[in-house]
C-alpha cells in the first residue's frame, strides 16, 4: 500500500479535527466577543452618561455664577466685572478651576481672571485674542441646563489644557455706567475630566476616552489616537473607500455602536462611540486595543496545540506500526511473489515437459489409430486420443489462467475471417455433439461482415469454452450456436457481435450463478464429478471478455438448460456478408465425411529439428503417408549444418533444446547468406503452449508455429500452406476417386457404416477387399454357427460369434457387431436361453448382410497398384509368432488383429500363399488351423 494512502487521509482527518476545533472555538469566541463588545458598548454609554452628567454639573455651576451676576443686574444693582470675578473667586471651591470674564466686543477679547497669570504675580488680565475657541459662540444659551462648552484649549493664564463652560452675564461698565455683556467662563482643566474616568481602569486597563466635536476634532484625546482630528487619523491608517469612510463618519457622529479600526501601528482596535445627548456637538469615543477585548476568546491555543501534537504523535505511532506491518507484509508478499514465480516457472516447465511426452503419446497414438485395424486397439487408442486431448485442454486452461492471474494476458487484435473462425468452432463442437448424440443447431446471421478486426484467438477460445461447457453439461437434446450482429449508430467502422450458445443441459441453480465465474469452482461438483474440467473455463472466458470490454451473460433454468451470451464490439475490415453459413457448413460436412489425408508430396523435402528422438519419430510417422522426404536433426548445430548444405522446402525447429535453442538456431540460420535455404519458411515446433506464444515466435523471426503434441490435421494444413504448390498432389480428389470405386449401394446399406469401415481399414481398397472376404466367408460361417449351435457346442458357438462380432465391426456393420457381442456375452455366461432366442436373429441379419453385399462379387477388381508397404521378414516372423501364441491361448481377438495387420502389408511372393491361407482361416473362424498353416511352413 502506498504510504501516501495512509498519510494523506490521516493528515486530512487531523486537519479536519483541528479545523473543527478552531472553527468551533472561533464560533464560541465570536459569540463571546460579541458579548464582550456589547458590554464594552454599554460601558461607553455609562461613561457617556457620567461625562454628560459631569459637564452638565459644571455648566450648572457656571450657570449659578452667571445667574447670580445677572440677577444683580436684573435687580438694578449690576456688578462690575471686578465684582463679578470677586464673587466667583469666593464662590468657587476647587483651586484648579478658574473663572474668566471677558468681553467679546473688545478687540483683544480681554477680561479678568479669578487666578493670576503663572509667572506674573498680580496679573489677572486675560486675553483670548489668539485663542480660537469661540466659533460656536452664537449658540451659547442662557437657558439653564444647556451646556455651552469650548473645545480643549490652552488656558492663557497658566498654559494648562482646559475646557470652559460659558454663559453671558450683564455687568456694569464703570467707565460708562452702562451695562455691558460679558462672557463668563468656568475654566476647568482637562485633567479633572480625565479623573472622572479613572474608575474604568479596573475593568478596561487600556481604555482611552476621547471626545470629539462634530468635525472629529478632539476635545479630549486619548494617547493612542493621533492627529488633531479623529477622522484624519482614521483615514491615515485605514485604507477605506470614500463611501466606507463617509459611512463610518456618519455612524460615529450621531450613532451608538462600535467599529474596529487599525491604529497607527497597524493593530486592530475597537472604537465604541456614543453622542452626548445633552451637548449635541460632542461625541464620546472609547478606544481599546482589540486584543484586550477579545483576550477571553475561547480558542484555547494550549488545547489546540496539545491536540495537534497528540494527533501527530498518534499519526507517527500509527505510521511506525503500519511500517512494521508493511515490512512484514512486504516480506510475505515477496515470499508469495517468489512462490508465484516458482509457480509460473513450474507451469512453464510443466507446459513444456508435459507436452513433450504428450507429443510422443498422441503422435504415436495417432499412428496406431491410422495403422491398426484391431477394433479393440482402435478403441483403446481412441480413448487415449480423447484423454490426451482432454489433458491438453486442462493444461491449456491452467496456463491461460496463470497468465491472466499474472496480468500478462494481452489482447492482440488482427484482421480475421469470421467464417474461418466459425469453421474452426463448428468443426470442433460438431464432433463433440455427434459423439454425445446431441443435435447441433446453427443460427448464423448471413449479413455478418466477413472480415473483422479483433483478437480472433481469444474470441475463439471464449466461444470454444462456452460450447464445450454446453456439450459437457448436456446429456440429451441440443446445443444451439447463434451469431448475429448489430450496427453501432454513427459508426461505420465497427459492429457489435452478438454471440449466444443455448443448450438443453442441466442448467444452473440461481444460487449457483455467483460461483459460475469463480476460478476452480465447479457447480454441483457431486453431480458432475464425471465431467472433466478444471473449473477454469468460464473464469477464463469472462476474463477475456472483460479484457475486450464485454461480459458474459448467463440465463438458466435449472433442469431445462442455459443460454450463455455476450456482445462484443469488433471493427469491420470488410463489410461483405458471410452469406448462408449453414448451407456451406452442411456441404463441408458432407465433404468431410469422405476425407482422408490431404496430400502427398514425394518431391518435397522437410527438415525437422528436435532434441527428443521420439518426437522425430512421431513427426516422421505422422507424415509418412505424405511420402515427403523427411530429414531429422537432434540439435541446433546439426540443423544449421544441414541448413547450409541441403535445400528444404520447410524447416520445423524445436524451441527448447539444450546448447542452442530454437530461437538461437533460427537467428544463426537467418544470418547465413547464400544457403540453399534462403527464403525457406522456418516454423517453430514447440511444447510451449502458453497463450500469446505465437506472437512471441513470430516476433522472434519464425514464419509460423505449431505446438506439441502435434495435431496431425493442423500439421498437414500448415504444410499445405508452406510447401511449394508444384510439389503437392492433393489427395482429396484421389481419395474421392478411390471412394468412388466403392460401389454406390454400400452407402445406402443401413447395416453398414462405410465411414467406420474406411477408418478401420485405412483405405477404400483395403475396405473393399475386407468386405469381399467377409462376403466370401459369410455363408459358410453362418452355416457353421448354426451347425455348432444345433450340436449344442456352446463354447465353439461363442468363439464363432466372437469372431463375427470383430469382423462385423471392422467392416462397419456395427448393429450386427453389437448383436454378436451380446450373444458372445450370453455364450460366455452359459445363457443358452438367450442364444436360443437371439442366435437365429443374428444369423438372419448376417445372411441378410451377405445378401446385401452380394453385388460385390459382381463388381470388377479395383484399378490401381498395390500401394501397401512391403512387410519385412522380421515383422512377418513376429506376426507368425504372435498368431501361434494367440491361437494357443484362444485369444482370437489378437489373432484377428494380427491378420488385419498382415493385410495392411504387401507380402513377399514366397509367403503370400501362407498369409492368404491364414487370413482365410481367420475369416472362416478356423483358428485351430492357423498353427498348422504356420507350422507347415516348416
Amino acid at each position: 500500500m502506498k504510504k501516501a494512502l495512509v498519510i494523506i487521509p490521516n493528515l486530512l482527518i487531523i486537519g479536519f479535527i483541528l479545523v473543527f476545533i478552531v472553527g468551533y472555538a472561533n464560533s464560541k469566541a465570536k459569540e463571546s466577543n460579541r458579548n464582550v463588545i456589547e458590554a464594552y458598548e454599554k460601558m461607553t454609554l455609562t461613561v457617556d452618561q457620567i461625562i454628560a452628567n459631569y459637564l452638565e454639573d459644571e455648566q450648572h455651576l457656571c450657570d449659578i455664577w452667571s445667574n447670580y451676576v445677572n440677577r444683580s443686574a436684573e435687580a438694578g444693582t449690576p456688578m462690575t466685572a471686578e465684582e463679578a470675578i470677586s464673587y466667583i473667586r469666593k464662590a468657587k471651591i476647587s483651586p484648579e478651576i478658574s473663572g474668566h470674564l471677558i468681553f467679546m466686543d473688545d478687540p483683544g477679547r480681554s477680561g479678568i481672571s479669578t487666578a493670576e497669570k503663572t509667572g506674573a504675580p498680580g496679573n489677572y488680565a486675560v486675553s483670548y485674542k489668539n485663542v480660537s475657541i469661540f466659533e460656536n459662540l452664537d449658540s451659547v444659551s442662557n437657558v439653564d441646563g444647556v451646556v455651552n462648552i469650548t473645545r480643549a484649549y490652552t488656558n492663557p493664564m497658566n498654559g494648562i489644557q482646559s475646557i470652559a463652560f460659558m454663559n453671558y452675564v450683564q455687568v456694569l461698565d464703570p467707565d460708562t455706567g452702562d451695562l455691558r455683556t460679558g462672557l463668563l467662563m468656568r475654566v476647568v482643566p482637562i485633567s479633572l475630566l480625565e479623573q472622572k474616568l479613572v474608575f474604568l481602569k479596573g475593568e478596561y486597563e487600556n481604555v482611552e476616552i476621547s471626545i470629539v466635536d462634530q468635525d472629529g476634532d478632539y476635545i479630549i484625546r486619548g494617547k493612542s489616537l493621533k492627529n488633531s482630528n479623529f477622522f484624519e487619523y482614521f483615514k491615515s491608517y485605514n485604507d477605506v473607500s470614500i463611501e466606507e469612510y463617509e459611512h463610518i463618519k456618519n455612524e460615529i457622529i450621531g450613532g451608538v455602536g462600535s467599529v474596529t479600526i487599525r491604529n497607527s501601528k497597524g493593530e486592530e482596535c475597537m472604537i465604541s462611540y456614543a453622542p452626548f445627548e445633552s451637548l449635541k456637538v460632542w461625541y464620546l469615543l472609547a478606544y481599546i486595543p482589540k486584543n484586550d477585548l477579545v483576550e477571553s476568546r475561547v480558542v484555547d491555543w494550549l488545547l489546540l496545540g496539545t491536540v495537534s501534537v497528540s494527533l501527530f504523535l498518534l499519526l507517527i505511532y500509527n505510521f511506525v506500526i503500519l511500517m512494521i506491518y508493511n515490512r512484514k507484509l512486504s516480506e510475505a508478499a515477496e515470499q508469495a511473489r517468489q512462490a508465484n514465480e516458482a509457480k509460473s516457472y513450474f507451469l512453464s516447465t510443466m507446459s513444456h515437459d508435459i507436452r513433450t511426452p504428450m507429443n510422443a503419446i498422441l503422435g504415436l497414438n495417432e499412428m496406431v489409430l491410422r495403422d491398426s485395424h484391431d477394433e479393440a486397439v482402435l478403441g483403446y487408442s481412441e480413448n487415449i486420443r480423447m484423454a490426451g486431448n482432454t489433458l491438453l485442454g486442462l493444461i491449456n486452461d491452467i496456463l491461460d489462467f496463470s497468465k491472466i492471474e499474472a496480468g500478462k494476458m494481452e489482447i492482440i487484435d488482427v484482421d480475421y475471417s469470421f467464417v474461418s473462425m466459425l469453421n474452426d468452432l463448428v468443426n470442433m463442437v460438431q464432433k463433440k455433439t455427434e459423439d454425445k448424440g446431441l443435435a447441433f443447431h446453427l443460427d448464423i446471421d448471413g449479413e455478418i461482415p466477413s472480415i473483422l478486426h479483433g483478437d480472433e484467438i481469444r474470441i475463439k477460445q471464449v466461444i470454444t469454452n462456452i460450447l464445450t461447457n454446453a456439450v459437457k453439461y448436456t446429456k440429451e437434446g441440443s446445443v444451439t450456436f447463434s451469431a448475429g450482429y448489430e450496427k453501432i449508430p454513427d459508426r461505420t467502422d465497427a459492429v457489435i457481435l452478438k454471440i449466444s450458445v443455448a443448450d438443453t443441459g442441466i442448467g444452473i441453480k440461481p444460487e449457483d450463478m455467483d460461483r459460475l465465474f469463480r476460478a476452480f469452482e465447479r457447480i454441483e461438483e457431486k453431480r458432475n464429478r464425471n465431467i472433466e474440467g478444471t473449473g477454469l473455463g468460464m473464469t477464463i472466458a469472462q476474463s477475456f471478455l472483460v479484457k475486450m470490454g464485454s461480459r458474459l451473460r448467463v440465463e438458466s433454468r435449472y433442469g431445462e438448460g442455459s443460454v450463455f451470451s455476450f456482445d462484443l464490439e469488433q471493427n469491420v475490415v470488410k463489410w461483405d456478408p458471410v452469406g448462408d453459413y449453414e448451407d456451406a457448413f452442411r456441404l463441408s460436412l458432407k465433404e468431410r465425411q469422405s476425407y482422408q489425408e490431404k496430400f502427398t508430396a514425394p518431391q518435397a523435402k522437410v527438415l525437422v529439428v528436435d532434441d527428443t528422438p521420439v518426437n522425430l519419430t512421431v513427426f516422421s510417422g505422422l507424415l509418412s503417408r505424405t511420402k515427403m522426404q523427411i530429414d531429422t536433426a537432434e540439435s541446433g548445430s546439426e540443423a544449421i549444418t544441414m541448413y547450409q548444405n541441403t535445400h528444404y522446402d520447410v524447416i520445423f525447429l524445436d524451441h527448447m533444446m539444450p546448447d542452442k535453442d530454437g530461437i538461437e538456431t533460427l537467428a544463426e540460420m537467418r544470418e547465413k547468406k547464400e544457403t540453399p535455404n534462403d527464403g525457406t519458411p522456418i516454423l517453430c515446433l514447440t511444447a510451449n503452449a502458453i497463450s500469446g506464444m505465437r506472437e512471441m515466435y513470430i516476433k522472434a523471426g519464425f514464419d509460423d508455429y505449431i505446438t506439441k503434441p502435434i495435431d496431425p490435421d493442423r500439421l498437414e494444413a500448415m504444410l499445405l500452406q508452406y510447401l511449394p504448390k508444384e510439389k503437392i498432389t492433393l489427395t482429396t480428389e484421389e481419395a474421392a476417386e478411390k471412394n468412388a470405386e466403392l460401389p454406390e449401394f454400400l452407402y445406402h446399406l443401413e447395416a453398414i457404416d462405410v465411414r467406420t469401415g474406411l477408418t478401420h481399414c485405412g483405405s477404400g481398397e483395403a475396405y473393399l477387399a475386407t468386405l469381399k472376404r467377409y462376403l466370401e466367408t459369410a455363408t459358410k460361417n453362418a452355416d457353421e454357427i448354426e451347425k455348432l449351435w444345433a450340436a449344442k457346442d456352446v463354447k465353439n458357438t461363442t468363439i464363432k460369434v466372437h469372431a463375427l462380432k470383430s469382423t462385423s465391426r471392422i467392416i462397419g456393420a456395427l448393429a450386427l457387431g453389437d448383436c454378436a457381442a451380446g450373444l458372445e456375452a450370453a455364450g460366455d455366461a452359459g445363457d443358452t436361453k438367450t442364444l436360443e432366442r437371439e442366435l437365429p436373429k443374428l444369423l438372419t441379419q448376417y445372411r441378410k448382410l451377405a445378401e446385401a453385399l452380394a453385388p460385390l462379387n459382381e463388381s470388377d477388381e479395383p484399378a490401381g497398384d498395390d500401394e501397401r508397404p512391403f512387410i519385412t521378414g522380421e515383422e512377418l516372423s513376429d506376426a507368425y509368432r504372435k498368431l501361434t501364441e494367440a491361437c494357443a491361448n484362444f485369444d482370437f481377438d489378437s489373432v484377428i488383429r494380427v491378420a488385419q495387420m498382415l493385410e495392411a502389408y504387401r507380402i513377399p511372393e514366397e509367403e503370400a500363399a501362407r498369409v492368404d491361407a491364414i487370413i482365410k482361416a481367420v475369416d472362416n473362424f478356423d483358428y485351430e488351423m492357423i498353427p498348422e498353416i504356420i507350422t507347415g511352413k516348416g
Partner: protein
Amino acid sequence: MKKAISILLCISMVISLAACGAKTPAQSDSEGGFAPKLDANTDCSITVAGSYDNFEALEAEFDRFNEIYPNVQLSYVKLDDYNNILATALEGEDKPDIFFSYASMIGNDKYAPVFAHMEDLSDASLGLDLNCIRSGLINHDAEGHVMMVPVFSRSYGMLVNNDLFEKEGLSVPTTWTELMNVCEAFKGKGYASPMMGYSQGSSSCLMYTVAYPMFAATLAGNPEALKMANDLDPAAGEYMRPALEAVEQLIQSGCIDLAECDPIEDNYTQVILRFFEGDVPMMICAGDTVSGTKKRESQSEAFTAAPFTYTFSPIPLTEEGGYFIDSPSVEFSVNKDGEHLDMTNEFMRFLITDSELNKMASVKRLVTPTADLSFDAVYAPFGQVPSERIISPEVLGIKDPLTVQIRVAAYQVGKGEITVDDAVAMYGTFE
C-alpha cells in the same frame, strides 16, 4: 520511512521558522542601532508642546520609542497662541518637557523666559548626535551652546508636474533662460499661467518665495550689505533690486498670471489642491506647503483620478540655476526644568539621528535637516544643488526684520502696487 522523517522534519522546520518569525521588541530595538541608557521599564510621561495642530510624524516616533521604553507615555500637545503662551506654559504646573522653538526667537527679548528654560543640547554628556544635522542649520549662541535642534528645515522653490512636462515634450528648466523658454512654450500650448502660487496676502506669497532666495544670495557675498540690510538701512534697498526685478519679469512676461493665482485662497491646502488639478506645470511655494502634499493626494479627486509624479525644485533664478535656502523650520528645545529630564534627553538622543529625523521628515514630507536628501524623491532636486548655491540664512546672520522687508516689497511689486524703484527706496519702511 524516509518520507515520514522528511514530513516530520518539514513540520518541525515550519514550526521553528514560525517561532523565529516572532520578533521580540528588544531584537528590533537593537536593529536601529540605538542603545538605551536608562532602565527600559522606566515609567513616566513626557509631553512635547508645539504649534502644529497635529504632529503624526512625531507621534510615530513616540511609538517607535515605546518599543524600547514601553512605559514611557509620550504625548504631543498643541498650545493655543503658542508664541505667547509658551513662556507661561513653561512656568505652569503642566510644563512641557520638549517644546517647539524657532530661529526667529533668537535675539527676541520676548522669548527670554523661554530661553531661560532651554537646556544646552551641545552638552557632550547628553550624547546627542548633532553632526547628523547639516551644520548650516544649527545655531550656536555666543557661548557655543545649542539651545534648539532643528527637526525640519524649510526652503523655497516650486512644485513641478513632471508628467505634464513629459506630456508636452518639455524639460524641467535649470536656468533662467530655460525657465523663460519653457513658460513661453507652455503658454503657446494654452497654459494660461505656467507658474502659479499663492498671491492673496504677503505671508508665504509666491513673490516672496521667488524674491527671498535671490535677495539672500545677493547679501551672502557681501557682509557689509548684510549688516546694512539687517539694520534696515534704506541704502540696503538696492540689494533687493535683482530679486524684485525677477519677480516683476516673471509676472510681466506672463510666466505668472496673477488673475489665475488670485482664486487660491490660502498658502497651504488650496495651493496643493490647485496643483493637484494637474494643469499647473510649476507651483511656487515653500517647503512647508510641500509637507501637506502627501496627505492631500487622496483628498484631491482630480489627483486620485489622474495621479502624476511631481518634485520640489529650486526656482532657476539665474543662468547658473536656483538657490537652496537652507533654514531651519521647526526646532526642538528641551525644558531643563522638566520632571523627567533624563528620559527627555534619552528621547532626544533617540530622535536626533539620521534615520529617525529622515523618517519623521518623510512622514511629514518636510525637508529633513540631515545631510541626506535623497530618501524622499520629491526633494531629490534640492540634493543636487551644488554647495556654493546653498545658503543658510542662520549662518549668514539674516534676521527676521530683513525678511519682512523683502516679503512686503516683493508682494507689492508683484501686485503692481509699487515699482521696483519705489520698493528699493522704501527699504526699512515695510511692515
